[in-house]
């Protein structure tokens, strides 16, 4: 039987606010345990939550970017359950009336195909703390610094049909939240993580199969592997006549498998109800319109514009718009040169390679956009060849100055003086009488040999096009 995999993702994006969603404690990552947990975050008796305006603005920004409805009235609810990293015994979340709902985004898959993925809803909620499982005499330690960090939970429709689609969608959300500057996207630190709802069904069947929820996937690779493992597990069960149990499972990256979460075995009854400590969140149409007007150019629009404006292939445009910083760098370089494709090749090639090797972001590149443009201009005006340019770039990267300084200091300027090149050609022809004779006898391929010899004799600095012209002329005499 052929099986179809059905996937929906619930992505948790930690919002980049300075303070927590309901308290004035800092959200900075990596502080000493419980030093950023104030009375509200600790759920002390008598304290009350007050909503962070910026968290709301960020949710609105996400909503307008994903063609979603922004609820004029949304409601915070309590999700009640006991867990040591949940200080109040309930999580403040949004349940029946989320702030963002009914949107979509188009994901471009590897093969260039476009796939529309529905955004069911995106709601604001508070993050929980962390249980540390190092052994404290057989006990666990609880750190509540993360408790109360604002989260936007982005719930997709079950529109994804493979692990690769799921990863492409996750990557787009990752890119988008960074474009919108609402989440730092740091998956290692847990700033962006997701749960995957996975089920399988025979191809052609309309109804969904029973789904399992895989919790806390915090890398693209884990998402792909967990989904593939889980889908296969379910298919194996069904093919051997069994049935899938609806449950919550945990992905174990060490063993590359999913297993049921023991703590969630007990059927949960979250007893949602509107939080009486918080009032309905009312959002003015004017606020939404302002957010819409202030949206930055979004990844897909930028990609399309790059293709069009710079004549780039869609794939290249995609690479160059991966982040706002890369795109801005590229545009800055492109504005300083005549050929935007030359700029694209360099940003995607030598620059990306060097950054990758150094593990640096484009913002930290030792060669800034103006400097790179300065180098490319010297290729375009014939001062140096593309090959010499690579050498110049390396020197610039190492901090040896601008392109012109490196070219000047090292005497890399291309030789364009006709008489000088002619002199070298004369010498080469004189030194290689045998090859000259063979060439004249019709062995055309030796033309390349002579070019090579001339370039070698000039240390690569002769202008290759000029060498070709002059050599052809000399040989035909």
């Amino acid at each position, binding site marked *: 039987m052929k099986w179809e995999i059905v996937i929906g993702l619930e992505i948790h994006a930690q919002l980049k606010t300075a303070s927590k969603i309901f308290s004035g404690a800092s959200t900075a990552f990596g502080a000493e345990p419980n030093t950023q947990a104030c009375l509200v975050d600790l759920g002390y008796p*008598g304290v009350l939550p007050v909503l962070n305006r910026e968290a709301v603005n960020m949710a609105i920004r996400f909503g307008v970017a994903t063609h979603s409805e922004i609820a004029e009235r949304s409601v915070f609810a309590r999700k009640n359950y006991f867990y040591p990293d949940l200080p109040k015994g309930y999580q403040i979340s949004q349940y029946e009336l989320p702030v963002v709902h009914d949107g979509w985004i188009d994901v471009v898959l590897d093969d260039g195909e476009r796939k529309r993925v529905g955004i069911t809803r995106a709601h604001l909620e508070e993050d929980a703390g962390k249980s540390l499982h190092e052994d404290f005499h057989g006990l666990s330690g609880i750190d509540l610094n993360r408790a109360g960090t604002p989260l936007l939970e982005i719930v997709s429709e079950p529109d994804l049909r493979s692990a690769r689609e799921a990863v492409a969608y996750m990557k787009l959300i990752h890119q988008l939240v960074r474009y919108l500057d609402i989440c730092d996207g740091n998956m290692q630190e847990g700033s962006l993580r997701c749960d995957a709802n996975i089920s399988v069904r025979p191809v052609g069947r309309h109804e969904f199969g029973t789904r399992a929820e895989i919790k806390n996937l915090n890398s693209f690779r884990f998402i792909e592997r967990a989904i593939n493992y889980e889908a296969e597990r379910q298919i194996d069960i069904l093919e051997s006549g069994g049935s899938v149990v609806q449950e919550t499972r945990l992905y174990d990256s060490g063993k590359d498998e999913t297993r049921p979460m023991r703590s969630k075995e007990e059927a949960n009854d979250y007893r949602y109800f509107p939080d009486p400590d918080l009032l309905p969140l009312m959002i003015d149409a004017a606020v939404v319109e302002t957010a819409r007007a202030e949206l930055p150019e979004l990844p897909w629009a930028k990609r399309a514009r790059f293709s069009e404006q710079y004549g780039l292939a869609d794939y290249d445009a995609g690479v160059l718009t991966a982040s706002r910083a890369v795109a801005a760098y590229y545009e800055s370089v492109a504005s300083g040169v005549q050929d935007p494709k030359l700029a694209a090749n360099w940003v995607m090639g030598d620059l990306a390679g060097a950054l990758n090797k150094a593990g640096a972001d484009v913002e930290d590149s030792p060669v800034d956009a103006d400097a790179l443009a300065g180098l490319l201009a010297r290729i375009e005006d014939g001062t140096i060849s593309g090959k010499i340019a690579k050498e110049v770039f390396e020197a610039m990267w190492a901090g040896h100055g601008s392109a012109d300084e490196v070219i000047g200091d090292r005497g890399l300027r291309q030789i364009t003086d006709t008489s000088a090149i002619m002199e070298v050609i004369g010498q080469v022809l004189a030194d290689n009488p045998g090859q000259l004779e063979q060439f004249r006898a019709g062995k055309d391929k030796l033309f390349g040999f002579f070019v090579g010899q001339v370039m070698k004799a000039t240390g690569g600095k002769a202008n290759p096009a000029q060498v070709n012209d002059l050599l052809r002329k000399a040989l035909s005499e």
Partner: protein
Amino acid sequence: MHTRTLAELGDALAAGEMSSEELTRHFLTRIEALDPRLNAFITVTGEAALEAARAADRERAAGRAGPLTGLPIAHKDIFCTDGFRTSCGSRMLDNFISPYDATVVRRLKSAGMVMLGKTNMDEFAMGSSNETSFYGPVRNPWDLDKVPGGSSGGSAAAVAARLTPAATGTDTGGSIRQPAALTGTTGLKPTYGRVSRYGMIAFASSLDQAGTITASACDAALLLEAMAGHDPRDSTSVDAPVERYADGLDRSLEGFRVGVVEEFFDEGLYPASAAAIETALDVLRSLGASVKRVSLPNLALSVPAYYVVAPAECSSNLSRFDGIRFGYRAENPRDLADLYKRSRGEGFGAEVKRRIMTGTYVLSAGYYDAYYLKAQRVRQLIAEDFRAAFAEVDLIAGPTAPTPAFDIGAKTDDPVTMYLNDIYTIGVNLAGLPGVSVPCGFADDLPVGLQLIANHFEEGRLLNVAHMFQQETEWHLRMPGGEFA
């Protein structure tokens, strides 16, 4: 000195008749001597009180005294007090030292008031008789075998016996007004949102409101002015200007329309209490008010609606008591579940557990719509009843409680019988209205309270009527005799 009202004591301090230290020492002496009979205090903060009194005296000497500077007050032990135990009447918080002040406490402190201590209360404010306290029942100074009402029973008994000139309280379903009625004191429950709930340990967040128990409406006006106002730490606190309540107390009631709720005068109302209320209505007429009948047709549903909404909210509010960050923690837990269950099972008393379980049940899957949502709709009906009534009258008057104080232990067997004590007060909380109970006579030698209810944010009018009533009567000046005199 203790027979004087807060306002009178304030005048005496201003006139230099006595110092705050002397005044504070006087009340501390009374507490020491008499509280063993009443059990009105859980914690007495004597040394800190004297220190604060001396500081107040210095402020006065420096010419920086306000109307409340140097006046003593007791706080219900539901308000967090920085550096002092805040028990909420529960074993759960017997060892809890609050690291912060509730907004109410902070405001009264910065107005110069001197805290004498923390008063006894029903555990987590769940009760109408003060019998559910971990610290034992409070006794009514009018008759030590009777309850003082609850949940602010300690505050009410302490003010009635003049162990303090005034006290704070909280009112979720009548917890200020009912004990005020049962102890012959003046109990004010402001509009929901008028006074900050920050630092007030939550019972039912959409119903809880802080208020005062005092010897007079004038005292309540003085305190409310200092307590009320917007608090950025409480999302449900209202950002509206605070009136100068004391300035409007003497306004005439000529042409004022008072509504008497038909449904309040049912077979449940004790005849002698009803008679006292009728007499009180005559006093209002004599002050120029017209009295007409109004109806709150859904009143009977207020108690069942309340006993869905309040337990639901409390079941969630009390989940934070888990033995991990503060409060009672069971010894040697076997595992995590055991830590939770025994810490909570041993830390909470029976009534609190009943309410948590009721609330858990009505919110659980399959019952939410039938109970919680339904109760919220009924709540709307009750609020609409009041809206309709206030279209016809300026104020509603009636009894505060169906009977005078009852015997300790008389109603502890059946929770529902106890719940019905609040039949006249609960609707006010559901609708978020302000209400006050003022002494209006006696039944079987026990105080009877007249309840006055106003529209949202009309505390000024409410206190005006209560004050005018107290200018014509002297029930509020009566004090329990014998050792408390």
